[in-house]
Structures are given as C-alpha cells and as structure tokens.
C-alpha cells in the first residue's frame, strides 16, 4: 500500500505549485497513471481524501487518467495495446520487450482559483 506516499508526493508538489501561482484554492488535480505502474487508482482516491483535508485542496476533485500498456511488436512492426498487461502481440503472439507507455505516474495539471 504505497499509494499514500505516492499521493502525498503528488499533493505536496501540487500545493507548492499552487502557492507559486498565487492560488488560494485547488479545485481539481489531474494525474496520469499507467496500468503497469503498480499503483491502484482507487487507493489513490482514498488516500487523496484523507491527505487533502485541511489543505487548499480539501474537497478538490482528483481525476485519474489511466494510461494503457502500449508495446511495440518488432515482428508486425506496429504498436499494440495490451488488454491484460501481458507483453504478447495479439496478432502474432510474440512477446515484446519494448514497452512504450504504461508505467507513467504523472502529475499532469490542476485547476486553481487565483485572487
């Protein structure tokens, strides 16, 4: 259950940036989380509610965009999205050693109120 420390890290960065931007309130924080990142979005949501209490992001919306696992198949010479996190190409069945997306843990943007 490392979602608490990951959410804390995201929230700290967001609150710092909000302060630098002269914001008084954070309305929404947007994250991009890869399906192969090992982080569970529901657990992040749960952690966010607890951690945001008493900060300028209290009650804010946490929007999590899940990034699918996208591999490159060297045999078919094309990318494929893995439905089950396994690396095998759905067309030729060969495993791919090249993951192109899916491990992201990114703080992408936020909506704030400035005075």
């Amino acid at each position, binding site marked *: 259950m490392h979602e608490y420390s990951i959410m804390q890290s995201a929230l700290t*960065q967001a609150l710092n940036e909000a302060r630098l931007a002269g914001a008084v*309130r954070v309305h929404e924080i947007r994250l991009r989380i890869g399906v192969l990142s*090992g982080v569970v979005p529901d657990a992040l949501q749960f952690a966010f509610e607890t951690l945001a209490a008493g900060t300028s992001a209290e009650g804010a919306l946490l929007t999590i965009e899940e990034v699918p696992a996208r591999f490159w198949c060297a045999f078919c010479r094309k990318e494929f999205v893995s439905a089950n*996190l396994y690396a095998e190409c759905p067309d030729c069945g060969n495993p791919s050693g090249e993951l192109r997306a899916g491990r992201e843990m990114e*703080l992408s*943007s936020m909506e704030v*109120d*400035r005075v």
Partner: protein
Amino acid sequence: MCEDCGCGLSAGIATTISGHDHPHPHHHAPEPRAEERQTVELRRAILEKNDRLAERNRGFFRARGILVVNVLSSPGSGKTTLIGETIRRLGPRLKTAVIVGDLATDNDARRLRDSGAPVVQINTGTVCHLEADMVARAVKQLEMNGLDLLIIENVGNLVCPASYDLGEDLRVVLLSVTDGEDKPLKYPPMFHTANAIIISKLDLNQACAFDLEAATANIRRIAPRARLFEISAKAGTGMDDWCNDLVRQHEAVKRRGPLD
C-alpha cells in the same frame, strides 16, 4: 462613509481633503475581484524527487565502479539465503556489501553478517518498500572504497518496490517454487521491470509439484528479455552461473567508468 459615493473610508486613509469634492483623492478599497479560475500545467513525474535521488546514487556508484543489484520478491522467497550464499561463493572475486530493508527486526542483517560481508539494516517502520534516500543514508554507514558489489535486499513485497528506482544497475526478481508458477501473471508490474529473474528454492521443486516449463512460459509473457536463472541456494544448483554473471556485470560496470 463617504456620502457621495458610499465608499468605506477606513481609519488609515488620509481624508484631509476639504469639502470632499468628487472626484475625490481618497483611496477606495480595491473592488474585490472575482476569483479567477486557472489551469496550471504541471506534467511532471510524481516520484520526481525519488528519481532525482536515485540518479544521484547511480552517479555515486558508477564513479566508484560499483555494481548495484536490487533484489526483490514476495516475503519468504529466499532473498536472504540467496544473498548469503552469493557472497560466500563470490568470496574474494567481488568485495560485496549488503543493504537490507525490512519493516522491523535486524534478523536478516544478522543472518547475512555470517557471510562476512558488511551489512546495514534499514527498518522502514510501516513503509512497504525502500526509497532512494534510505539507500543514500545507509551507504554512509558503509566503507565504499574498494567495494565491487552492493546488494540491496528490498522489503519482501511484489507490488510497491517496483515503483521506486534506488539507483541500481540491475533489478533481480525472485520467483520461488513455493510461490507458484503463475506469480508473474498475477504481478506483471514487478516482473516487467526485472533485468534478471531467479526461480529459487529449486530443491523443493518436486515437493511443490512446480511446473518449471509453465513458470518459464509465464515469465516470458511478461518479461521476454530478462535473463533467467534456476537456482537452489541451499543445494548449490545454478549458483555458479549466477555468480559468474555478477562478475561479468561488474566488469561491464567498471569498463563504463565514472560518469562525465
């Protein structure tokens, strides 16, 4: 209050203007502006701080030609036994130190000290994984000069440690025959990040009716490029291949030399 315009004249504002004619020079309090909604683009890694510290660790290790191996598995898959036996077999070929992470106790550190290598125990408390700054702090307790190999035994956990770069050269994930053949399919993120995968406790293979072929096929579905070792640290099976691989990896790290 100014009767002409209704503005509030607060005590601090000079109001010595005779007759108070408009346009009047006292200051109106600024109109309370409506709060302004704004989108702030961030686009940064959530674990940016850990990633930065991990890179710093990596530079520190590379400058000294030290091979760093992060060993990961579920609890009880044989990490400590494998590491102890690895140190004994490498003997004088590679001067080795160990950092070992657990939530509590120094049992693993005590076990590993029997191998003769310097060991630092990190107790993470309730934290389920090691982070780069914990490693940086532990390294300060070790004599790094002349060291060839640093083995980091991560907290036993097949999920969380996958997300944290420690500054290692190699990630080694253990799959013990007691874990079952399908662990790689159940925990893709961890196995996906592995540079090497060790099937451990091979001496219990038959007792567990472990299907080695199926396990290998499962590993290949997740981590087709990882180097694969089949080992019993207790019986010694496969240990030579593994140790020779570490020696080769260390030579490669030494050749790369210090970072620019």
